C-alpha cells in the first residue's frame, strides 16, 4: 500500500515541475498539418478566370448535402471560366459540412480545395452559409476579374485544362511549347525544368500548394500566431 501511495503522490509531485502542455489557443495558434481540412476555397487561374466549371460534381459527392451549385453558360462576351459553363451560384452550408473533403476529391478542375482556416463561428445561422463571393480566392497579382471576353483569353494562348497534368509525361520539347506560356505564368522558375520534372512539380503544386497560394489574407491569419 505504501509503495502505491508513494508512487501516486510522487507522480503528481513530479508532474508539478514539468512544463505545461497547454496551447493558449486564441493567443497562440498552432500550425495545422499540411492536409488539414479547413474551410473551402474556389481557386482561380493565374489570369483571374475561375476554375469552377459548374459541373456540380462536388455537390453530388457531398454526403452531408452541404453544397449548392448552379451552373450557367459562358458566352463569348462574358467568360467566367474556361470551357462551356461556370458556377453561377455556389454556396456551402457550414452548418452541415463535416469537412470530409469528398467534394474536393470530386472536383475535376481542382477548383475546390480546402484552406487551413478553422475559425468558423457566427451569431446567426445564415452567416454560416458561405456564398460564392466569400469562397472565391482573391484575384492573383495583375489579373483581371472575370468576366473576360473570348478574344482576350485567346490572345493569352493558354490551354487551361487539360493542363500540364494531362500531358504525356514523356512528351518531347517541341510538343510542350503550348504549355510553356502557361508555365511561365505560374512561375518563371519552372521554365528551366524538363517536362518530366515539370510534371512532377505541377502535380505536387496541385496537391500541396496551389490551393494555399492564392489566399494572401488567409495564410496571413494562420501565420499570425
Amino acid at each position, binding site marked *: 500500500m505504501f509503495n502505491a501511495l508513494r508512487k*501516486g*503522490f510522487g*507522480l*503528481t*509531485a513530479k*508532474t*508539478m515541475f*514539468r*512544463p*505545461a*502542455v*497547454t496551447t*493558449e489557443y486564441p493567443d497562440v495558434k498552432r500550425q495545422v498539418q499540411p492536409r488539414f481540412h479547413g474551410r473551402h476555397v474556389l481557386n482561380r487561374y493565374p489570369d483571374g478566370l475561375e476554375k469552377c466549371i459548374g459541373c456540380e460534381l462536388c455537390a453530388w459527392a457531398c454526403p452531408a448535402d452541404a453544397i449548392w451549385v448552379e451552373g450557367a453558360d459562358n458566352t463569348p462576351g462574358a467568360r467566367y471560366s474556361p470551357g462551356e459553363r461556370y458556377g453561377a451560384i455556389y454556396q456551402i452550408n457550414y452548418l452541415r459540412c463535416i469537412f470530409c473533403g469528398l467534394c474536393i476529391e470530386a472536383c475535376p478542375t481542382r477548383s475546390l480545395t480546402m484552406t487551413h482556416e478553422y475559425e468558423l463561428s457566427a451569431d446567426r445561422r445564415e452567416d454560416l452559409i458561405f456564398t460564392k463571393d466569400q469562397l472565391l480566392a482573391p484575384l492573383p497579382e495583375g489579373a483581371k476579374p472575370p468576366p473576360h471576353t473570348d478574344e482576350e483569353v485567346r490572345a493569352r494562348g493558354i490551354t487551361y485544362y487539360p493542363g500540364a497534368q494531362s500531358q504525356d509525361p514523356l512528351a518531347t520539347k517541341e510538343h510542350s511549347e503550348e504549355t510553356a506560356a502557361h508555365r511561365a505564368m505560374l512561375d518563371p522558375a519552372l521554365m528551366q525544368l524538363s517536362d518530366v520534372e515539370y510534371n512532377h512539380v505541377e502535380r505536387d503544386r496541385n496537391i500541396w500548394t496551389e490551393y494555399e497560394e492564392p489566399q494572401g489574407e488567409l495564410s496571413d491569419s494562420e501565420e499570425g500566431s
Partner: protein
Amino acid sequence: MDLTDVLIALLVVLAGFGLWLTGTALTIWGERRVVAKMQTRIGPNRVGPLGILQTLADGIKLFFKEDITPEAADKFTYYVAPMLSAVVAMLTFAVIPFGGTFEVGDREVTMQIWDPEIGLLWVLAMSSLSVYGIALGGWASGSKYPLLGGVRSSAQMISYELAMGLGLAAVFIWTGTLQVSEIVEAQSGTFFGFLPAWNIGPQIFAFVLFFVAAVAETQRPPFDLPEAEGELVAGFVTEYSGAKFAMFFLGEFMQMVTMSAVTVTVFFGGPNGPLFGLEGTLLGALLAHFYFLIKTVAFVFVFIWLRGTLPRFTYNRLMDLGWKVFLPLGLLWVMLTAAIVVAQETLAQDELLFGIGVVLAVLIALLLVSMLFERRGPEPEDEDAEPTDQSALPSAAETAREAAERRGAKQIEVDV
C-alpha cells in the same frame, strides 16, 4: 474593560477575519493553479498576474448569474442553508491562535479571537453544525434528489465526525486540557533538545485519524461524494444556482482553510517556532504569525495534493473506512493514550520502567512466535500454490500435442 480593550479586541477580530477570508480566496486560486500544474496544464492566468484575481472574477460572475428558487422550496431554510457552512467555518476559526502574543502598554494582546476553556469542544461542535447546512439545503429544496443527496452527505459527515472526535479526544487526554491556548502552550519546547515538541510526535496516529476525518468532513476529494456531479446530479446542491451555489462551495473552501488551521494548532504547535528572543514584541508576534501561516499553507497544499492524486471513493468504501477502520482504531488509540497518561501520573519511576519492560518483553515474545509461525506457515501454502502457478502449467499447445499423440494421430502442426 475599557474602550481600549474593546478596540484591541475589534482589531484582533478584524485581523483574523481578514486573514481567513483572503486565505480562502487565495486557496481557491491556489488549488486551481496547483492542480493544473499537477496535470501539466496552466490553470487560471487571465485575470491579474498569474490569474490571482480569478476568484474575484468567478465570484462576480456567479453573483450575476440567473438565480432560480424552486416553487416547492421552503424559502427561509433554502436561503439560510448555504450560509451555514460558511458561518460555522468562521466560528471554528475564532478559537485558533493565528499569531503570537505581544504587549501594548500594560496589556497583553494575543492574536486569537476567543480562547474559551472548551476550545476543542467548540471545534467539534462547529464542525458538526456544518452538517446542518447540507441536510437543510437538501431538505429545503423541495425535491427528491437533493433530499437523498443531503441525507447521504449527512451520513458521511456524521461517520467522520466520530473519527475526528476521537482524534481530538486523544489529544485532549494527552495534554489534559481543552483550551486551545494551553494545547499550543503544551507543544512549545523540544524533545531530546532538538525536535519540536509538537503533538504530532506522540499523537501521530491521532493526527492521521483526525486529518483523514477532516478531509472527509470538509467533503474534499477523495471524499467529495456529497457533490458527486456525475452520478448524483450534484446531490444536495441540485436545486441551487448562482450565488447560493457559490456559497456552498465557498463554505467548503473556508472549511478547508479552517481545518488546516485546526490541524496546525492541535498537532503542529500552532504559531510556535523559534522567536530569537523577540518574545512579547510586535515583531515576535508577527514572526509567530508567519510560522502559523507557513504551516497552514502546507496543509492546504496537502489538501490540494490529495485532490490532484486520488480518485473519488465509492460510498461503501467510505462508510467501511469510517465505521470499520477509523472508529475501532480510534477507540483503541484513545484507550492506549489514556493508559499511558494514567501510568505516567500514578506510577513511580521504577514501576513505570518495570511496566515498560514487561510490555516490551511481551511484544518481543509475540514477535518471536509470529516469526515461528511464519517460518512454518508458508510451506503448506506453497504446495497448494504450486499447481495454480501459471508458468508451471503446460502450455495449451503442448496439451494439444500430447492429446493428439495419445490418440495416435499423426503429428499435428500447432501454431502458437
